[in-house]
């Protein structure tokens, strides 16, 4: 048994296998069961003291079954025999009312699952007290960074230890254990009655991923450099996007490369395989088995082995991402992207794993050097309102002016608008500073001309 968990991999898998047997007995033609068990810790520190300690213990089971080419789905957090019987009957009942679809199938076992290490035993071994000290250290570093850092919004440490088990009636019976650890800092800098915020964060699969000094300093530095920010006149100008902002744009692009959206006419990249859709400097990869990747796992939410898919290579759209259903529809293979983004509470849908823009060759300083005048964008507001189907976005931004290759005065209260494909088409430089923010990664990029709406 792996340390710190109430339910072992073996136990979770046993429950999943038994649920599949029950579903088959009750008349399902194909059935699948997913069991997830996790323990999480969340610590929030402010003003040198613990504000919140949260400890969670969660177990859930999902059943997906197919009868007469119709699919039903149910979940429960009650894992006793009666409850499982009851939800299987509900699933059959739900299935009967859905539309028949010949592509409703479940996968066969994969020939070989990648061997990955996404489990760090230290996360269960280290005491809560030591983890509280990490959060306090983040705050100390941030507050000491500059006297104008006057308020801590929050400094957090969080981790998780989890087990995922999956079984289906075609013979899949797989499980794995994983860990996550991360920390964040949110500070407020104040000067002359003005307040500005900044954040720092880092997440990884190992305990060592959390470096308090770096996270504390990042949040404080970002807050301080925004003091004195003003709007700028409406104009067309050069824009440089911080890696974090680029990952925000990747969030908008991601649904467009998922086969589900493509097949349903909801993707702006539908029918464009083999076509140039972005600048030749753009190569985007989805890697479900990346070493140390927070979204890495040996198998996806349907029990299919994870893979590495180059989605856009040198600006040319090469491949979409598939789960079992969308692959069956096109007569191709699942890319291992059937993701249960809401764990046991939802069906496995096509989604990204570790999704990143490959780094270029120049440093960020070299990328900035050629910019006579422009804006370096470090924060966006309202990105969740961007439209992933049309690719249109219109967001509030803040950042720093670039003058003669140098970052100068802070800017806020301006907006940019455009289309995500236009943006990736007009990228004229990609730096080498690839950085991951949870499941998305990107380096700094530069765009030749964009409309900035301001005063």
């Amino acid at each position: 048994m792996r340390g710190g968990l109430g339910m072992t991999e073996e136990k979770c898998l046993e429950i999943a296998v038994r649920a599949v047997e029950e579903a088959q007995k009750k008349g399902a033609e194909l059935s699948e069961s997913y069991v997830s068990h996790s323990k999480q810790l969340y610590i929030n520190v402010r003003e040198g003291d613990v504000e919140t300690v949260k400890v969670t213990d969660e177990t859930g089971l999902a059943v997906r079954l197919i009868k007469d080419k119709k699919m039903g789905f149910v979940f429960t957090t009650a894992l006793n025999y009666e409850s499982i019987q009851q939800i299987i009957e509900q699933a059959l009942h739900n299935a009967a009312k859905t539309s028949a679809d010949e592509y409703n199938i479940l996968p066969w076992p994969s020939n070989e699952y990648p061997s990955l290490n996404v489990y760090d035993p230290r996360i269960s071994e280290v005491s809560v007290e030591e983890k509280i000290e990490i959060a306090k250290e983040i705050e100390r570093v941030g507050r000491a960074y500059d006297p104008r850092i006057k308020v801590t919004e929050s400094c957090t440490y969080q981790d998780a230890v989890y087990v995922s088990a999956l079984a289906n009636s075609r013979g899949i019976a797989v499980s794995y254990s994983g860990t996550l650890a991360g920390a964040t800092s949110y500070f407020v800098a104040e000067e002359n009655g003005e307040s500005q915020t900044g954040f720092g964060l880092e997440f990884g699969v190992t305990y060592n991923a959390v470096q308090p000094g770096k996270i504390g300093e990042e949040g404080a530095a970002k807050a301080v450099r925004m003091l004195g920010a003003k709007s700028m006149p409406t104009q067309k100008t050069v824009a440089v996007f911080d890696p974090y902002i680029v990952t925000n744009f990747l969030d908008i692009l991601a649904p467009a490369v998922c086969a589900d959206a493509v097949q349903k006419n909801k993707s702006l990249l539908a029918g464009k395989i083999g076509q140039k859709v972005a600048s030749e400097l753009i190569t985007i990869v989805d890697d479900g088995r990346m070493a140390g990747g927070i979204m890495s796992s040996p198998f996806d939410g349907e029990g299919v082995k994870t893979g590495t898919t180059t989605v856009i290579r040198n600006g040319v759209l090469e491949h979409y991402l598939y789960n079992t259903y969308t692959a069956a529809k096109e007569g191709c293979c699942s890319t291992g992207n059937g993701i249960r983004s809401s764990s046991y509470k939802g069906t496995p849908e096509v989604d990204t794993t570790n999704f990143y823009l490959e780094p270029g060759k120049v440093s960020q300083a070299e990328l900035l050097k050629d910019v006579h005048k422009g804006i370096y964008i470090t924060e966006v507001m309202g990105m969740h309102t961007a439209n992933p189907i049309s690719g249109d976005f219109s967001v509030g931004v803040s950042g720093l002016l670039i003058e003669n290759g140098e970052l100068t005065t802070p800017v806020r209260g301006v907006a940019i608008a455009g289309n995500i494909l236009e943006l990736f088409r007009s990228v004229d430089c990609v730096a080498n500073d690839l950085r991951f923010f949870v499941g998305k990664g990107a380096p700094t990029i530069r765009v030749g001309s964009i409309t900035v709406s301001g005063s």
Partner: protein
Amino acid sequence: MLTERELEKVLYAALGKGGDFADIYIERKDANGITCESDKIEKIHSGIDYGAGIRVVFQERTAYAYTNNVTLEGLLDAAVIVSKAVNSGKSSDVTISLSKKEVKDVSPVKYLPGDIPVEDKVALVERGNAVARAYDNRVRQVTVAYGDNISDITVVNSEGLFVQGTRIRTRMICSVVVSSGGIIQTGFESGGGTAGFEFFLNSTTPEEICRNAAARAVLMLDSRPAPAGRMAVVMAAEAGGTMIHEACGHGMEADLVQKGLSVYAGKTGEKVASDVVTVVDDATVPNKYGSFSFDDEGTVSQKKVLIEKGVLKTYMYDYLTAQRDKRPSTGNGRRESFRHKPIPRMTNTYIAPGEYDPQEIVAKTKRGLFVKKMGGGQVNTTNGDFVFDVSEGYLIENGKVTAPVRGATLTGNGPEVLRIIDMVGGDLGWGIGTCGKDGQGVPVSDAQPTVRIPEIVVGGILE
């Protein structure tokens, strides 16, 4: 279900290593969802989400644990975990005696979703889908999703509070994709309430929701990019209340105020908005999406005037922030589920209707943007900067609403906008949404009359 004595035992265990206050929140949510896409009933989902969260407060520290094992044993385990996290160094000498309080239901339900056969819900979805599909030949995809849930909630605390109740919510969303000549546009509409199946018979029909979504998408196909720069903006009542939610609501949540993270901190009794602005948060409006009888800490729901004729009256409080300010909670302690500790949140928030005829407001605006429907938004409460998306907008030229525009966002500063709003209409329009804060999403509704902001930054494209 656990007995009163058992719940008392768990509270004692939670306070076993000291603490000022403890509570238990038990929730069982039975949810159902139906999705129609590509002209097919693609998914019918059901789920049972059952768990309990235990909280102990000691001075400024909160310890929280939750479990899916809702038995005396499971809750005692969780109670021991929270008590260890508090570890005040001395035990608590509190005496706990639960006494059940009946709370009046503010959202009566006529037809329980659980009593409605699945086929009737499927039929509702299919009706909506048919209307959206038939609206225009440029419609490429229609997604209609129906959802209902029944939550049975029990809250007990170490002060003896014991309340139980049921919340029932139903909703429908429709998203339409249209394309023509290589341009893709989308339209979205939603409707829902703290109500039963009657919601779709009385208030808003599936046909209405889906027709609006399709019409909006088609209109955007024929629209030009929004202009960029500073201009006057008139927001229609039917635009929904995203602006007031973002520009003002979040900054009046007491936790942000107390942490010094709000531009409205220390401004009670001060003028923070123009005379024509009155802002209300009211969880007692029957059957609205953000309504409830008691909040997630067991406090009976209330109507609060946050800003009265421009003057800041009160913030929104939960138990903990109210304790700090030595006053009662306003019944704004909410949580997404048993997985989260309660924090101050909005419920149904609106700008109260004013005196102007909505048409007169447009007529008095020479040039600007008319916002008929807002999308989502976001605010930085620390400096008050906000942004929100315009999902249906038009130009105003010489006092008349003219050509539709797409891709506009409004970027502004909350306090500044509230100070300059110069006309408020006599109408009132509601919208629903899921508000996100600290990783927790809760159902809310917002409303506003037609209002005019004389000058705000519109993010668009410079031609």
